[in-house]
């Protein structure tokens, strides 16, 4: 049994809001699942297997896979929970893709969800850190990102205003996305005037805490013609997860001549080699990137090969990543507009699928054929997927 090519044939997402108290977690999942099933012209009975994920400790429910069957449709079906922190949503997508690509399953449903409003987000995130070496002196998300931003500015000369450009861009894009949480016209001065959370990161630089869910149906090439939508094909995936202590990224940077974000750089190299990407800015028509805060929109562009080291500020200010530019980044508004963490990576995948299918509504990039979706997790992990309109010549890991 050879590897099968797989395509995305259905997408469902809930409206993303700061609180969704009108539904329980199971019911929130169900909204996204129903939408994805409707979109793919299927019922629960047609699904062969389910992959689901959310952040550990966020809702305080450990057996999410079994707890959620009323909402997910998994009753009596193979179901697997995958949870990898911030990358959970993209890992769920990759897990569903692997199920189909293995040839063992034809129709697999990927689900990512979160009710951030039900938890103490920072309290829950701290449980990801080592009890001896990290938690007493460190924890949560904002301070870790601030350390990265400080170093990035020191090494490249990038400014807080450069970062603010990214926040303005993404939230403006979100105006075109009826599902997004923060949709606003803003400007650099407004972002600069928001209070510091941990220097140099300000409130306006950070993603919001969001409730929301996303579901995506992956189908085998053998049956991909049976659905109302033309499939969005997975061209390749790659991931690198590095983790020891909070300072892990530095090991590679300072000791072995690597750069700041070895996980993203290594995943990118592998993925681009497999898919044949040599000039991402020219070859990708769209990118949905997991940018959890504004500075990521500068530095990750470098790690993803869109520009040279320290070239992030010039790249984003050139307009090449704006709507109408060479490769619009985050037409959906991205993570800076909506961050229901377990859903977030899967939403990036869903958004790229909608783009290459030409179904992205007001946020559509005209004629988009090939796109990049990424997931980011702390401490500096990276999942990456290339999704395209054309069927790839073969299945790739």
């Amino acid at each position: 049994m050879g590897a099968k090519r797989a395509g995305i044939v259905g997408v469902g997402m809930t409206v993303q809001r700061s609180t969704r108290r009108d539904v329980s977690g199971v019911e929130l999942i169900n909204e996204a699942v129903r939408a994805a099933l409707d979109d793919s012209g299927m019922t629960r009975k047609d699904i062969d297997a389910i992959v689901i994920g959310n952040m550990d400790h966020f809702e305080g429910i450990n057996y999410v896979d079994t707890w959620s069957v009323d909402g997910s449709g998994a009753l009596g079906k193979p179901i697997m929970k995958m949870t990898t922190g911030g990358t959970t949503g993209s890992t769920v997508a990759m897990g569903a893709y692997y199920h189909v690509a293995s040839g063992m399953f034809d129709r697999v449903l990927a689900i990512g969800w979160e009710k951030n409003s039900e938890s103490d987000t920072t309290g829950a995130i701290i449980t990801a850190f080592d009890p001896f070496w990290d938690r007493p002196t460190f924890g949560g998300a904002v301070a870790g990102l601030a350390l990265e931003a400080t170093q990035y500015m020191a090494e490249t000369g990038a400014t807080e205003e450069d970062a603010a450009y990214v926040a303005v861009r993404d939230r403006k894009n979100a105006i075109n996305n009826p599902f997004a949480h923060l949709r606003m016209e803003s400007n650099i001065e407004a972002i600069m005037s928001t209070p510091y959370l941990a220097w140099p990161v300000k409130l306006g630089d950070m993603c919001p805490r969001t409730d929301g869910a996303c579901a995506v149906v992956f189908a085998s090439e053998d049956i991909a013609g049976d659905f109302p939508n033309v499939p969005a094909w997975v061209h390749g995936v790659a991931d690198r997860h590095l983790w020891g202590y909070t300072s892990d990224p530095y090991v590679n940077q300072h000791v072995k001549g690597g750069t700041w974000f070895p996980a993203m750089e290594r995943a990118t190299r592998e993925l681009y080699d497999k898919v044949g990407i040599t000039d991402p800015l020219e070859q990708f028509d769209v990118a949905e990137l997991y940018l959890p805060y504004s500075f990521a929109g500068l530095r990750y562009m470098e790690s993803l090969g869109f520009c040279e080291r320290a070239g992030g500020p010039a790249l984003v200010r050139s307009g090449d990543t704006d709507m109408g530019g060479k490769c619009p980044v985050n037409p959906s508004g991205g993570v800076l507009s909506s961050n229901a963490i377990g859903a977030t990576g899967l939403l990036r995948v869903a958004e790229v699928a909608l783009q290459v299918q030409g179904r992205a509504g007001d946020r559509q990039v005209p004629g988009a054929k090939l796109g990049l979706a990424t997931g980011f997790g702390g401490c500096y992990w990276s999942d990456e997927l290339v999704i395209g309109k054309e069927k790839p010549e073969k299945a790739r890991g």
Partner: protein
Amino acid sequence: MDDWREAQEVLVMDGGIKVPYSWSAGETGTTYLESLRDDKKFLGTRCPECGIVYHIPRRNCPDCFSECAEWVELGSSGELVTYTITRKHHPQLSPLKGVFGYAVIKLDGADTGFVHLISEFDESQLAKGARVEAVFAGEREGSILDVRYFRPVKAVS
């Protein structure tokens, strides 16, 4: 769902799960913490294959996957790799009072940085590469917080 707030008052139940744990530092971590507690000395471990000196010490090199059995004594000063400053005090979360910083610090003799706190600084003294030194707690109990924080090394004139 956009107008759900107007439709029905929904019941919300507050929860809080407290689960006790007893984490073991292991032999390597214990040797390190005992040295901090008893001798005020930082120890690292050296990988026999690639030669990297790890601080915090690791028993296994994550790259070579070989056992790092050799102990190396490190300095109690080092340089700032990067840092951030926190101005808002939270009684449950803030490990120090007042304005303080979180920093990645590379100790003299180590190849890797680690996360700790910085205090007693004037902000003009902070920069990538700035020299900092450890301030130990008077009463030490075998925790990374036996080092209260790091502070800028006073310039020798």
